[in-house]
């Protein structure tokens, strides 16, 4: 079966490359030849196709479901509803509040109601249209700012509040001579990974199921599936199929339980793969936000206090809303020293699409507000945008707004200085229409084009926070194969395109001194690798691989020490040999290992984090902070409202670049996603209905939209992290958008308190 191709992809070996090098990704060749098996490419003999029938209503009671007609469609093998869910009809990332298939109520447009399996996907889709669901449409809560009103219909009992985070520090009623404030609104962004949600569920002879699926965390999926399928985890085995991007959108379940239910019921392998439209309904989105912020400062610009009130629309189910509120609250004022603080952040239920994880996780929304307000403050006290940020920017040893001491590098001022000092792009070139705003639309000859420059800086927590037991497991094996020392690394940590498998190989080469490292296919046969999110994998799974290598090395060196009669601490592994302290070869690894394999499995945890105080929001909530700054340069046609981003330059502290090329790739890609939210990306939801579920109407940046990017990477090691690494993936998505928005404001001379910025906001029409 073709899943074998998926297996092969992660086991090829590669040219040497240790920590700090940039070896090629081990799956790269298969990806450029078209042979890499993504979840949507899987195929199995005797396979059938599953599809999902979804609710057309944002809120309704289900009066009845009639599947009789659908079952008569030739080619249909099974039609399942909530009654067929074998275990508990409830799943959810943090709280099991979402039915596998809706039974009594549907709470958002697109909620799964029934499943069909058939021999052709089109047959299944047509049959699904013949399932008759009788709905009683109910009033829907669609304005999150009204969701907590007494007369708002309850999406769930007892009410619509998911989390209210209160944070108080210093004197919350402090006053200051200079006061600036604003309201800011952020639209709903989609992860828009290109590989659609897909999976192949294969029923097994032991009564269990093997699911090959694109996901970000196999073990959290497994936990939810076991409950929903009513099966022990030995019978629910997950295997990572090729993942076509994730960005948070694959943290919640998609096809997992549905495909498995169909497979277990029919006894046939079942493939499910969403089309693009269904994908817009098939995963959570970035929370839209409504924020009211106020800064008080001395006349020289030094911050005295900050107050913020934030409402995040969680949509119909909890997903990770509580943790997103945690970030929007605890990190919501940016990387600044602020003695007196009052923050209230709310996450609410509505009948809008569920929102949850997306790259930047609560910090993206907040950064638009604090950065716009920082520019206001600069203006009010007569400083420029860089100077005001440098004046107030955090430094190592400062205390943040939850009272946590920043105990490693916090180079806010330096990052800003670097982007300020980067070469500016040349003046607008209006000779070629392709380089003007509106480009080949041929809308301007340069008359109304104004250039603007904007800056933003951010910090983001790395890893899971607020006391979560955040660990990864790694199994590393060292043996002789065909006369060569080979290491095999097995983790369940999801490779989603970011390059974790390359990093795993680099760490093994570095720690074990071997050339050849096989990356074992990712599955649940090894312990959890934690989530591929929160910029945590290089840190946490990287830490686990390093620790497992150290354990293997200790065993091998102990054996060598015995046979050589020298203390183990004078021995090292290098080039497949045991070498002495001055690098002299003492004995080959083959002579020490013989036929044996040395294998160790290790769990690695970062330093514990702690819950915050429920009254004051104070506490050491986070394990690590990552900082980045952006400078955006834009040309704006102020008459037509068209924007061309001319440059998007950035500097970021990554602690230690394990793979410098991949680090830059993350920064460039993350910056593009941030820019997308500033200028074009929004899921438009009216009355609970998604209006633009397609790439025709939901626009992501193309190669024509992206400017050249200058990237400067700093490496201030975090002494608490393996190799000194600092998470990389998210900060660029946070600081790029606010820099672009600031640049557009500067050019247009308008406040622009909402993103994405649309042409009519610029022209004021």
């Amino acid at each position: 079966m073709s899943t074998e191709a998926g297996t092969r992809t992660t086991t090829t070996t590669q040219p040497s490359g240790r920590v700090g090098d940039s070896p090629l990704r081990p799956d790269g060749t298969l990806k450029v030849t078209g042979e890499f098996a993504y979840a949507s490419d899987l195929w199995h003999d005797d396979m059938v196709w599953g599809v999902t029938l979804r609710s057309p209503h944002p809120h309704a009671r289900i009066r009845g479901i009639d599947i009789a007609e659908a079952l008569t469609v030739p080619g249909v093998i099974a039609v399942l509803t909530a009654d067929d869910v074998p275990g508990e009809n409830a799943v959810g990332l943090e709280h099991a509040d979402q039915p596998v298939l809706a039974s009594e109520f549907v709470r958002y447009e697109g909620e799964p109601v029934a499943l069909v399996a058939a021999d052709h996907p089109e047959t299944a889709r047509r049959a699904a249209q013949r399932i008759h669901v009788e709905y009683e449409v109910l009033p829907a809560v669609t304005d999150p700012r009204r969701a907590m009103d007494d007369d708002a219909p309850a999406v769930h009992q007892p009410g619509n509040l998911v989390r209210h985070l209160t944070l108080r520090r210093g004197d919350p009623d402090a006053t200051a001579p200079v006061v600036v404030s604003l309201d800011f609104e952020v639209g709903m962004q989609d992860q828009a990974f290109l590989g659609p949600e897909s999976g192949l569920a294969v029923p097994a002879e032991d009564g269990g199921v093997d699911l090959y699926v694109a996901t970000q965390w196999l073990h959290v999926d497994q936990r939810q599936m076991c409950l929903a399928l009513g099966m022990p985890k030995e019978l629910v085995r997950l295997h990572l199929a090729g993942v076509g991007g994730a960005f948070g959108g694959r943290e919640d379940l998609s096809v997992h339980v549905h495909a498995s239910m169909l497979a277990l019921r029919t006894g046939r392998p079942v493939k499910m793969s969403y089309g693009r439209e269904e994908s817009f309904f098939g995963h959570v989105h970035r929370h839209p936000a409504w924020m009211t912020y106020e800064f008080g400062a001395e006349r020289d610009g030094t911050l005295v206090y900050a107050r913020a009130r934030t409402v995040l629309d969680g949509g119909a189910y909890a997903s990770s809303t509580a943790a997103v509120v945690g970030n929007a609250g605890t990190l919501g004022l940016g990387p600044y020293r602020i003695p007196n603080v009052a923050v209230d952040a709310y996450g609410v239920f509505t009948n809008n699409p569920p929102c949850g994880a997306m790259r930047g996780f609560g910090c993206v929304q907040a950064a638009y507000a604090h950065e716009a307000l920082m520019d206001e403050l600069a203006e009010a006290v007569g400083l420029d945008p860089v100077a005001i940020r440098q004046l107030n920017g955090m430094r190592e040893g400062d205390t943040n707004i939850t009272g946590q001491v920043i105990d490693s590098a916090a180079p806010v001022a330096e990052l800003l200085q670097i982007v300020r000092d980067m070469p500016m792009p040349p003046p607008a070139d209006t000779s070629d229409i392709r380089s003007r705003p509106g480009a080949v639309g041929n809308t301007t000859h340069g008359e109304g084009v104004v250039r603007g420059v904007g800056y933003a800086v951010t910090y983001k927590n790395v890893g899971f926070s607020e006391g979560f037991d955040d660990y990864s497991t790694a199994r590393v094996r060292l043996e002789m194969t065909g006369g060569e020392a080979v290491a095999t690394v097995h983790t369940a940590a999801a490779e989603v395109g970011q390059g974790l498998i390359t990093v795993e190989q680099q760490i093994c080469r570095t720690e074990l001194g071997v050339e050849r490292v096989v990356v074992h296919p990712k599955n649940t046969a090894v312990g959890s690798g934690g989530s591929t999110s929160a910029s945590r994998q290089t840190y946490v799974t990287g830490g686990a691989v390093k620790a497992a290598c150290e354990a293997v090395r200790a065993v091998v060196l102990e054996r060598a020490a015995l046979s050589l009669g020298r203390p183990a601490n004078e021995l090292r592994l290098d080039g497949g040999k045991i070498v002495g302290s001055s690098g002299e070869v003492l004995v080959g690894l083959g002579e020490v290992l013989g036929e044996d394999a040395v294998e160790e499995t290790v769990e690695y945890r970062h330093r514990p984090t702690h819950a915050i105080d429920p009254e004051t929001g104070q506490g050491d909530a986070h394990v690590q902070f990552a900082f980045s700054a952006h400078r955006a340069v834009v040309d704006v046609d102020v008459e037509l409202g068209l924007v061309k981003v001319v440059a998007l330059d950035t500097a970021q502290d990554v602690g230690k670049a394990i793979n410098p090329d991949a680090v830059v790739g993350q920064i460039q890609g993350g910056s593009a996603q941030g820019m997308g939210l500033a200028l074009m990306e929004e899921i438009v939801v009216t009355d609970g209905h998604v209006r633009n579920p397609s790439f025709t109407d939901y626009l992501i940046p193309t190669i024509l939209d992206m400017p050249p990017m200058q990237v400067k990477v700093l490496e201030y090691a975090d002494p608490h992290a393996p190799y000194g690494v600092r998470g990389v993936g998210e900060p660029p998505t946070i600081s790029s958008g606010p820099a672009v928005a600031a640049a557009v404001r500067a050019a247009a001379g308008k406040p622009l308190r909402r993103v994405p910025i649309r042409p009519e906001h610029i022209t004021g029409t």
Partner: protein
Amino acid sequence: MRITTTVNGAVHEVDDVWPGESLLYMLRERMGLPGSKNACEQGECGSCTVYLDGEPVCSCLVAAGQAIGREVTTVEGLATEGQLHPVQEAFLECGAVQCGFCTPGLLVAAHDLLARVPDPSDLEIREALAGNLCRCTGYEKILDAVRSAARRQAEA
């Protein structure tokens, strides 16, 4: 219906094709060639780009029946005798591949550009690849890869 078409140089006969199926579906699900990708199936992303009689097309917008008697080249047909094409090598070595879901379509589009314009300017590259979405890279390394492929072809 039965469809006879040439794919990557070999003549294929495919049976039982339902008339509503796209060329993309036929390649992926009936011919064992899933290299061309299905990110939107609406003609908006370019991940399904293949050559049809030498012209790059979105295979999701082409009915399978339109391929009858014609020549299709997919990403699987770019390498010759196990040797990667310079465009493929350049994408791999320049870090233009992250998740790689956009890659097959981009490779065909870049291959086509370089066949027409051996030494393209950045604006020409951007214009030629404007129909291919990538969500991971921010396109910088894709530009690097196309520039590098142009150099490799000039040297070859």
